[in-house]
């Protein structure tokens, strides 16, 4: 798991993961890249991350992947990421394609729902919590 301040260099990240694993005898390597879209007059997105829980979320996914003979990677930005820049890269490797195709879907969806990352739109230099696009984590509302 890699966290960077500001935008990610997607090609460098792809290259580094690919070179690390190309001799590992995985047959399928899938990457998901999230790029900041221009919409609703935003200038950038901005992210807060709570690293201890993100790390344990990621480690439990690594175990889940290992049980299926697979491996996962992820990188995410902290702070501001301007339009058309990359804020998120994740990857799955597995011996055969089927497991990799299933895992990338589950991994990215669970990331969206449960990784402790908060997103803000940056408009006129101000950070506005992306409340309507955010999802309560599993177990939310316990103290209500």
């Amino acid at each position, binding site marked *: 798991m890699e966290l960077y301040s500001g935008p990610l260099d997607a090609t460098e990240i792809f290259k580094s993961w690919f070179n690390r694993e190309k001799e590992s005898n995985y047959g399928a390597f899938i990457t998901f890249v*999230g790029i900041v879209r221009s919409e609703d007059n935003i200038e950038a997105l901005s*992210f*807060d*991350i*709570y690293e*201890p*829980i993100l790390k*344990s979320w990621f480690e439990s996914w690594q175990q889940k992947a290992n049980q299926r003979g697979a491996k996962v990677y992820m990188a*995410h930005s902290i702070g501001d990421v301007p339009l058309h820049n990359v*804020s*998120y890269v994740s990857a799955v490797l597995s011996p055969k394609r089927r497991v990799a195709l299933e895992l990338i879907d589950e991994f*990215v969806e669970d*990331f*969206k*729902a*449960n*990784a*402790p*990352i*908060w*997103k*803000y739109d940056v408009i006129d230099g101000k950070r506005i*919590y*992306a*409340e309507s*696009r*955010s*999802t*309560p*984590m*599993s*177990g*939310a*509302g*316990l*103290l*209500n």
Partner: protein
Amino acid sequence: MVKVEFLGPIGYPSIEVEAANLADLAQKLKEIEDIKEWLSNSAVAVNDVIVDSLDTPLKDGDRVSILPPVCGG
């Protein structure tokens, strides 16, 4: 004393409170106007582990995190 941190957009400073378990803590947090509204959709971690029971006991020095709705990527 238990330390309570409010993560991400909640934007409220950490506090220290006396609480024997999460049910007890919930009562105290509901009294804070700026926090109350976040409780219905926030998850809770004790010492960085997400918990799912109000019976979860708390001891001196424990750290509780309040995690509002997320949106990574």
